[in-house]
């Protein structure tokens, strides 16, 4: 594997983790909830692709995005909003419950086995970049992740809602004191996390070519670690943490001796522990982690 391929792999994997970490980070920043049901938002997008096989691609992509956003907003409204004023641990337990419930709904309707989904066969081919063979799906992943990140950053930086969300993420009760509507900001955070999960779900399924009920689980666990490394409650940190995890994972995959590669994640989490020992609050600790709503 040459350096172009390593960089491509690292950027595409890092981009996936960064978008997932941002989705988790957006909700955490306004609700102080590590939403483990984010995994199922990724999976929902994958199953929407499965249902949409044979339909025009734009319609299928819209279905995937709509499914993730609707499920995200529904979980906020039904599973988290009623619990906002009780102990945070209760919301965390609720997020596990939602996660397992949705997984079982997939199993009930579609079975537990993986189902093949080939939404974009054209992406399977290899192209030459600076003399190296690189898969189109990885280049597409990098481009889409980059565009999504630019879109998200622009939304947060240049729009009224984005400014409200940034303010609320730093001090929610002060933002409410200025008149920011808690329900609206939290619902938008969930909707945005749904959009990010849908992008990740589509890109991930395009890469692996199948869906299964626990599709998003591993992604979210690793991305959550990225969120922690970046600094919980800091969106820039979540993005950097996601990319960092992607880079470390790719480098381990490339440079670990063959007999050790199956233990890649053990090495990855070992490095994570080392980082957290040196920077226990992450690389970019949130300066003002105030109380949630």
């Amino acid at each position: 594997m040459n350096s172009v391929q390593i960089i491509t792999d690292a950027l595409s994997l890092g981009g996936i983790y960064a978008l997932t970490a941002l989705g988790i980070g957006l909700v955490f920043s306004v609700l102080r909830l590590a939403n483990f049901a984010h995994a199922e938002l990724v999976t929902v997008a994958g199953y929407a692709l499965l249902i949409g096989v044979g339909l025009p691609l734009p319609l299928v992509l819209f279905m995937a995005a709509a499914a993730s956003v609707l499920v995200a907003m529904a979980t906020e409204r039904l599973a988290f909003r009623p619990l906002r004023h009780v102990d945070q641990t209760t919301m965390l337990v609720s997020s596990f419950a939602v996660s397992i419930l949705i997984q079982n709904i997939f199993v009930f309707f579609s079975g537990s086995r993986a189902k093949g989904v080939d939404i974009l066969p054209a992406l399977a081919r290899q192209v030459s970049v600076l003399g190296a063979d690189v898969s189109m799906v990885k280049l597409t992943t990098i481009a889409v992740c980059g565009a999504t990140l630019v879109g998200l950053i622009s939304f947060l930086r240049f729009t009224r809602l984005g400014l409200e969300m940034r303010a609320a993420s730093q001090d929610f009760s002060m933002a409410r004191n200025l008149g920011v509507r808690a329900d609206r900001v939290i619902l938008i955070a969930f909707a945005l996390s749904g959009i990010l999960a849908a992008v990740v779900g589509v890109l991930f399924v395009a890469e692996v070519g199948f869906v299964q009920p626990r599709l998003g689980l591993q992604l979210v666990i690793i991305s959550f670690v990225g969120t922690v490394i970046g600094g919980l409650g800091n969106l820039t940190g979540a993005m950097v943490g996601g990319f960092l995890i992607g880079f470390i994972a790719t480098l381990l995959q490339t440079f670990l001796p063959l007999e050790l590669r199956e233990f890649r994640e053990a090495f990855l989490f070992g490095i994570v522990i080392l980082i957290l020992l040196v920077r226990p609050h992450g690389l970019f600790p949130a300066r003002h982690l105030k109380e949630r709503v």
Partner: protein
Amino acid sequence: MALSAQSVNVRFGGVRAVTDVSLRLDQGEILGLVGPNGAGKTTLVNVLSGFQRPAEGDVQIDGQSVRAQPPHWFPANGVVRTFQSVRLFMGLTVSENIEAALTVAGYSRRSARAKAGDLLDYLGLAERRDTIASALNYSDERRVGIARALALNPRFLLMDEPAAGMNAAEVDELGVLIHAIRKDFGCGVLVIEHNMRLISDLCERLHVIVQGATLAVGAPEDIWGLPEFRSAYLGATS
């Protein structure tokens, strides 16, 4: 126009934080809310600003009950507060801190930036506009907090210990500023403050709370002479 609390009671579990307090803040006046630590002053401001719903009693604006309104309704309707700890959004710029309040009030990002510039000029902070809030010194931080409150175009401005941590010169400047705010914005200002020199300089009326209940209401010179006030607030034995 007046903001008022009518026979308000607040309890936290078995503890009575505020007991049967009635308070009136008229638009255009500066009212001092004073009392020893733990007397219930901040709780009363929480009630007046919609952050704490009283167990009994009412909150009214111009005689209309607003007790059942959600917290975000109050700043949108001219009841604005500042906190003892300023609580700026430390990762945002000075201008963005103010723009956040303005956009909630309906301004576009472009018009919010222009209006924030006007307010920063008013507070003498124009050159700090693009500074990240975490880089401000303490005095400027407090001024930005006041600018952010003014962005909401208050009819009633509730200030919780605005002079906390300030030196004598800064307190004098703050007094001038609060007088100017009352004049230029025409709002009623309620000031919780332990600095009696500032309170005397600012306030036409004082409302004294001790152990959650009203001890006295009157002009500062009348309040200072009350033995009960001196005993409760200053620990004197009269």
